[in-house]
Every structure is written in C-alpha cells, then in structure tokens.
C-alpha cells in the first residue's frame, strides 16, 4: 500500500514538475508538508499534553528550587526512604510479573488445549474486562474476601485455617502480589494467547512422526517458540505492576514505601522544603525504568509476531 502510494506520488510529481531535480525536491517537501498538515491537531495535542508535562518532569528533576542545574535531586532519589521505595517497587514488579506470567501461562494453556470455543470466547472477553478493573474497586473486592473480616477469612477460620497466622497480610507486600494477579493474569492471557494459537498442530504431528517424544517436542520446538513472547510478556507485566498506584494506595495506606506512592506524596506537598524536586527526580526514574521494560517488550513482541503473520 505504501509503495503504491509512493509511486503514485512520484507519478504525480514527475507529471507536474518534469524531471527538473530542484523542482522535484521542493515538490517532495511540499508533499511532506501537505501530509503533515492533516496531522496538526494531533501534534498540537501531543505537544501540549504529552510533551510539555513530560518535559517539565525531566527538566525539574535536574533543577534546584531556584532553577539552577543540579544532580542532587537525582542523587537524593537514591538515598534513604527514596532508595528503599525504588528497591521495593522493583521487587514488587518482578515478583508480580513472575507469578503473573506463570499463572497466566498455565490458565491460557489449559483454555487453549480445552478446545472449547465457548470457553475461549468467554475467557477472552472476561480478560479484557478484568485487565481493566479499576484499582480501587479491586482493592475492596479483596478486602471483602480475605481482609481481616473478609468472608473467606472467616469461613476458613471456622474450619480451623487462619490465613493470618503466618506472615501473610493483605495490607503488605504479599497481599499486593496476590491482588495484582487479578489484572496480571488477564493481561498475560491477552498477550500470550495469540502465541499459543500460533503453535500449529502440524508441528507436533511432524515431530511425532519423526520420532520425537513429548519431551523433545517441547525441548526443541514448543519452548524455543514460546520463549520470546513469554519473556516479552514478563516485561509488560513488570511495567504494569511497577507503575500501579491505586490498589497499593488503598491497601497499604503508605505502610510500605513504593515509588509511585512516594511520587504521589511529594506531589501532594507534605515534604521538606528543599526536597520538593525529588518527586520529579523519582518521576524521571520511573519513566526510565518503564521505558526500558516496554522497549524490551516491544522488541520481543515484534520478534514473536514476525513469523506468525507469514
């Protein structure tokens, strides 16, 4: 399509401009400007509401309160409670991504293998909705189920199981990992299901006919094909847990330091005066980390989908 358009443009240009090279160049420029002109509203919107806010965060991350250039905000973001929140956010992101990838993969595989069209349709729609569950209602669902007075907690107590007897608490790290699965598993299903569908039954048959055992089929065909999309999903899930705010805010009420919550606190303004720009530095830090994760995801996703389309 692009090539056709391009050659049509070229025809138009040669017809109007002859083979004069300078004329040709200015026509190409005019053509590009014409193409651009229809996108002006979009670019203005993006500059005002994506560009400006992002730029402000990055610039302020390197500024003192008086406006001079400094690295102290960024350095400060790697000390004390700010450093602790970076570490626990990274830990939360990794744990949540690992569990989400594992459980999401198992459920997707079970749904895929079941071969039930109806079930597959329901799971696909439900995943779309669950992956978009708002963080606040999500927190309350789990409070109702396994909070201190949750129905599941009380029911289990009646049969002698106390989920709070060990180190588990809904309102801490372990609780967040569990609750985040509620959007991580659906997210994993959405991204990995097409990859599972891409595995052709013929490959399995071909492998079997060539004498491959179930193990060697997975060892040499199944797993190598699934590695890029699974690894890619891991980074996507990491980014989603790393940046999540609402659920953590409602459940932990700030009892465990997390990067998004710290940024939020600094935005709300209860800070030591000379540290107000640390919030921007941590915001910048978050952009960098999420950008790295999403870039790896995009790269692996491209690799995984390349052969699928052919």
């Amino acid at each position, binding site marked *: 399509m692009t090539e056709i358009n391009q050659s049509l443009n070229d025809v138009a240009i040669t017809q109007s401009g002859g083979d004069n090279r300078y004329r040709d160049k200015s026509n190409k420029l005019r053509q590009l400007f014409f193409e651009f002109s229809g996108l002006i509203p979009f670019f203005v919107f993006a500059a005002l509401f994506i560009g400006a806010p992002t730029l402000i965060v990055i610039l302020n991350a390197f500024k003192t309160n008086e406006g001079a250039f400094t690295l102290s905000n960024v350095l400060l973001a790697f000390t004390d409670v700010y450093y602790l929140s970076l570490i626990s956010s990274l830990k939360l992101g990794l744990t949540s991504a690992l569990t989400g990838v594992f459980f999401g993969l198992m459920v997707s595989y079970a749904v895929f293998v079941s071969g039930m069209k109806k079930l597959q349709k329901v799971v696909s729609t439900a995943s779309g909705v669950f992956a978009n569950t708002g963080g606040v209602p999500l927190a309350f669902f789990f409070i109702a189920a396994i909070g201190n007075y949750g129905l599941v907690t009380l029911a289990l107590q009646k049969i002698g199981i106390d989920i709070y007897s060990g180190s588990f608490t809904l309102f801490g790290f372990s609780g967040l990992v569990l609750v985040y699965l509620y959007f991580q598993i659906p997210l994993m299903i959405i991204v990995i299901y097409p990859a599972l569908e891409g595995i052709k039954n013929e490959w399995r048959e071909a*492998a079997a006919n060539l004498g491959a055992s179930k193990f060697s089929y997975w060892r040499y065909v199944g797993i190598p094909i699934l590695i890029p999309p699974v690894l890619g999903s891991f980074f996507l899930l990491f980014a989603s847990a790393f940046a999540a705010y609402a659920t953590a805010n409602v459940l932990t009420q700030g009892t465990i330091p997390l990067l998004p919550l710290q940024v939020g606190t600094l935005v709300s303004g209860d800070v030591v005066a000379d540290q107000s720009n640390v919030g921007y530095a941590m915001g910048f830090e978050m952009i960098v980390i999420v950008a790295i994760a999403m870039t790896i995801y995009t790269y692996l996703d491209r690799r995984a989908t390349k052969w699928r389309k052919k």
Partner: protein
Amino acid sequence: MAQKMKIKTSTVAPRLGFGLNAWLIAGFLFFVVPMFSAFLFSIQLGDGTYTLGAYQRMLSDPGFGEAIWISARLAIFTVLVSIGLMLPTVTWLHIRAQRLKRVVEFITLLPLIIPPVVIALGFLGSMPLWLKDSVYMLVFAYTVLTLPYVFRSLDNGLNAIDVKTLVDAARGLGASWRQVLVSIIGPNVKSSIYGAIFLAVALVLGEFVISNLLLWSTLPVWMALVGMSDPEGAVALSVMSLVFVWLLLMLLSSFDRKRKVRIDIGGVS
C-alpha cells in the same frame, strides 16, 4: 490408512488432563470468589441476615451524586475528545500520510511508558492555573491515557476497509470532510469506535491516581474515601461499578451484533 493417521494424531494432540482441568477451576475460583465475596459482604449484616442497606446508604449519600456527575462528564468528554481527535487523524494517516503512521503510532504509545502518577506530576507542573482550576483538565489527561487503545482500535478498523477508495468516491461526489467522517468512515469502523468508547469509559471510571493527586472527587476517589469509614459502603460501590462496566460492554456489543466489539490490552490501576 486414514484410520491409522487419525489414531496417530489423536495420541499426540494435547488433551485436557486432570492437571489442566485443575488450572481452569483454580483460575475460575480466583476470579469469581472475590467478586462473590464482595457482593455477600455488601449485603450481609453481622447477625447473619441480609440487607440492601449499604446500597441505599451509598445511593442516598450526596457525595455519590457529586462523584457520579463528575465522572460521567469526564467519561463523555473524554470519549468525544479522544474519538474526535483520533478518527480524523487515523483516517488521514490511511488516505494521505501512510509514511507518517509510524511516528504517530509511536507518540500514541508514549502514555504506556509514562506512568499515570508521573503524568499527574507533569500536569501539575506545566498547566496554566486557569486550566488546573477546572475539572475539564482531567479530560485532557484521560484522553492522553486512552490514546494507545483508541489508536490501535481505529487503526485495526480502518485496515479492514478500503478507506482511500471510499473517501475519494465520497469527495468526488461532493461530500464535505465532515460528511466523509460522520457518514462514511464512522459507520464503517463502528465496532472499533464502540471498542474505543468502552475502553475510554472503563478507564475514566476506574482512574484513581490523577484525579486523587489533582484533588478531584471522582467516583474512585470518593470510593476510597468512603472505604476509610464505611467498608460495606465502599464494597457496595465497587460491586456497582463492576456491574456497570459489564452492562456497558453488553450494551455496546448488542449495538453491534455482526462484529465483536474489540477490547485491546488495557491496564488501569
């Protein structure tokens, strides 16, 4: 021979064994138990009787009306701005500016890289005071959040039709650009638009961090506030908001029986 082949395939094709069945059941329970608990929790009284008191209490609270009013306005305007901006943009990319598509797509993906809490921080730092004083500033922030999904949804929809021919034919017959978008392109990408509307509304009704930090009492912000003193009430609100999102999805799907309403990857939290 044919029978032999059949036996061969059936022995290698994966089957749903006990282990995989267990995964399906576990997955089902994990998603249904919290929802079901929430519903029971919201209607149960301490002595084992049931009541709809929590729902009545919430619905009659003046805070509820205010929160709904703010969230509903935000949802409607976000959908309008988002579709109003992106439908012409994506159409233009398809008919006149194919080579700029990559650039635009990259920009629409940026909100996935910039965490919402950072967008809130950036808006506070960069927007003029008169805009910050208005709840409608959230419309722009939310439109930014919807860009990745709306772009993809519309792009998929337009990929499925021959946009260029349709537009050229309409223009050749004297249609204005407005008519082209409203009467030609719009109806042809109906399912994409419904999908985009669903995502935008679900996103606006679920979004917490930006409105919380910018101090607007939208539905989720109010819900979190209620939860501090009245857990049953907050749980009742959560149940209502989930039911609403499912109903909206069913409603939009019923408008569009032929093609399924698309939901692409989301992630609001």
